[in-house]
């Protein structure tokens, strides 16, 4: 059963994707003023301030944690610098009960939902309070309370999972949706295709949010795809799509609000491609000077999404230079003090090595743990973290062997 074509031709006629390009939705110019004919979305003072303050928080966090990584206090870090409007603007347009399945550069989304500075630090330092129990690298955050799925390192795996999660939300009839974030590099993975196809066929309330930030580690977008970005792929799946200026908070917010309406009211997936730029390195292990010019970075620095939002906020009289200064200082202090506390906290217990692999600890794992504990008792000085955990257990009487 094949679908019949809309019209017939009688000579070989090849269509070419180059024949059209997708427009970019923009509302807010870099000067902080609206483009002619543009209408700001319905956004109140409190929401705008919450968004803006989250932007400042993540930038302070990024700066301080990169510095901490360079000082050797932290093993690894990833910044979202330059992409704050795309990430926080889209999350702010959702309901807090909607699910977020992110890639790894979306700390702004989590911060907007209320993840505290202390919660960030506990994960970054993998201490006993880390919800992930010190099992994953830094920046692999997760929060069940805030509907933010724990980050997984393999690229793009969260995209078909988001389709499945959203299908479950649809079956449950709760009027919720799922947003999944990924970079333009991740869109090259098979998981991306699998996800869009599954979601379109099964009419799933999911928002696929691509942060097209120009680089997948060192590979520029021009070597990542041949077409006009990621957006046109939606047509192949019969899916609604919008391309938006990812550094324009108002445009991202307005686009995502509408995407959510389509997802939840019509049970349809939507693709959003946010055109932005990764101002920072891919991660603390990366050095962009090897593959791109300072001049290019400077040109994008002038399109800083925070600066643009700040100018608009000030013009609305919703923000002031004085407030900015006070907030920056308070956040720097909070980040530093919280970091000091978090890095002093002990690591997760030795028992956490074998828990959560299964619902219950199977006998083979219990046995392996017993052997390990006996070994550590023999050589405690070689395993200071494990020995400390055993000490704690002895004083609290929590040990079984």
């Amino acid at each position, binding site marked *: 059963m094949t679908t019949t074509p809309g019209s017939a031709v009688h000579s070989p006629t090849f269509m070419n994707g180059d024949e059209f390009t997708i427009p970019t939705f923009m509302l807010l110019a870099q000067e902080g003023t609206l483009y002619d004919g543009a209408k700001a979305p319905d956004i109140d003072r409190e929401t705008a301030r919450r968004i803006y303050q989250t932007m400042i928080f993540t930038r302070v966090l990024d700066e301080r944690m990169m510095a901490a990584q360079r000082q050797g206090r932290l093993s690894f870090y990833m910044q979202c610098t330059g992409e704050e409007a795309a990430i926080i603007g889209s999350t702010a347009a959702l309901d807090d009960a909607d699910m977020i399945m992110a890639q790894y550069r979306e700390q702004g989304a989590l911060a907007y939902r209320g993840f505290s500075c202390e919660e960030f630090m506990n994960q970054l330092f993998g201490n006993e309070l880390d919800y992930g129990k010190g099992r994953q690298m830094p920046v692999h955050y997760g929060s069940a309370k805030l509907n933010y799925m724990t980050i997984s390192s393999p690229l793009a795996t969260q995209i078909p999972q988001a389709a499945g999660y959203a*299908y479950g939300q649809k079956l449950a009839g709760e009027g919720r949706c799922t947003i999944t974030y990924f970079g333009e590099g991740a869109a090259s993975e098979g998981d991306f295709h699998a996800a869009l196809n599954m979601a379109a066929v099964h009419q799933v309330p999911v928002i696929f949010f691509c942060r097209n930030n120009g680089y997948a580690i060192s590979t520029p977008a021009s070597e990542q795809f041949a077409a006009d970005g990621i957006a046109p792929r939606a047509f192949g799946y019969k899916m609604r799509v919008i391309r938006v200026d990812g550094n324009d908070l108002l445009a991202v917010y307005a686009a995502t609000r509408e995407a959510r309406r389509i997802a939840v009211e019509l049970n349809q997936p939507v693709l959003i491609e946010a055109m932005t730029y990764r101002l920072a390195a891919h991660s603390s292990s990366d050095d962009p000077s090897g593959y791109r010019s300072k001049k290019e970075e400077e040109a994008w620095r002038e399109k800083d999404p925070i600066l643009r939002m700040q100018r608009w906020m000030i013009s609305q009289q919703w923000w002031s230079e004085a407030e900015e200064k006070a907030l920056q200082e308070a956040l720097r202090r909070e980040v530093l003090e919280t970091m000091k506390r978090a890095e002093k906290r002990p690591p997760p217990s030795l028992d956490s090595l074998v828990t959560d692999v299964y619902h219950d600890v199977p006998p083979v794992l219990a046995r392996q743990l017993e052997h390990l504990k006996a070994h550590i008792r023999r050589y405690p000085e070689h395993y200071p973290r494990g020995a400390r955990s055993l000490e704690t257990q002895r004083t609290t009487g929590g040990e079984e062997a």
Partner: protein
Amino acid sequence: MTQMNMLQAINNALDIAMAANDRVVCFGEDVGIFGGVFRATSHLQEKYGRARCFNTPLVEQGIIGFANGLAAQGSTPIAEIQFADYIFPAFDQIVNETAKFRYRSGNLFNVGSLTIRTPYGGGISGGLYHSQSPEAYFAHTPGLKVVVPRNPHQTKGLLLAAIRDPDPVLFFEPKRLYRASTGDVPDSDYQLPLGEAEVIKEGRDITLLGWGAQMEVLQQAAELAEKAGISCELIDLRTILPWDVASVERSVLKTGRLLISHEAPLTGGFAGEIAATMQERCFLYLESPIVRVTGLDTPFPLALEKEYLPDALKIFEAIKRSVEF
């Protein structure tokens, strides 16, 4: 009790699970109206609607990715991979995602409600790509449970247990037995324990251990051996991961000899893991080296399938070698 073949037992288990819990959802390639290539999901769409039993696009990676998300959301997905030979496009989603969901999130999230069903094994003239037994790949992945039933009664009880187990389960169905194996199956809703081996027959001289379709072959070999005066203890492992070390150990301490048989290639096969564990635990009680009777270290053939597979005669010869060592 009703006389059923293995496919009917699977269908019956799925029907019971879907009736008991409206969050149970079945999907996979051709699973909907057609009932799957082997008809394991027949009539489920009619009974429970297209939202709960449906066809997916031809994308194993997508099926399991989707299933992971659905399970994390709180539904109970039962995903079918049409042949175990085609599970590899989904390998990343199973090994890196399904298996590690609970661990990596510190138990904030899990996909324990997920069951992946897939037909495995040879004996149906399926050739290279419809005959593989990939259980060992998954046995190397903590966080999964890997279950293989051997007859209709086992299939129903183990599948219902798998669906309701709090961990994700890979359920490998011996497709050679889908219609060949028949037996009485209770009509009730019952479960058999995961992670427990079953001693099918007590014996004195040697322990024969296997799972799934290989149990029938081991049974035939045991009968040949009995005629030659060798008493065999026959054990069905049933769950490959986590496996029942204690039951196998108990048997080997008694008989002093162990033979393990599987269809998958020898090198890196799960028999090697069992052998290593048993020599560690039973070294001084062993009367002869642990024997493995398996497929060859080659891909699966078509024309010489009978020659390739471990059969009753090959096992009988290995039993004699072990006893006469």
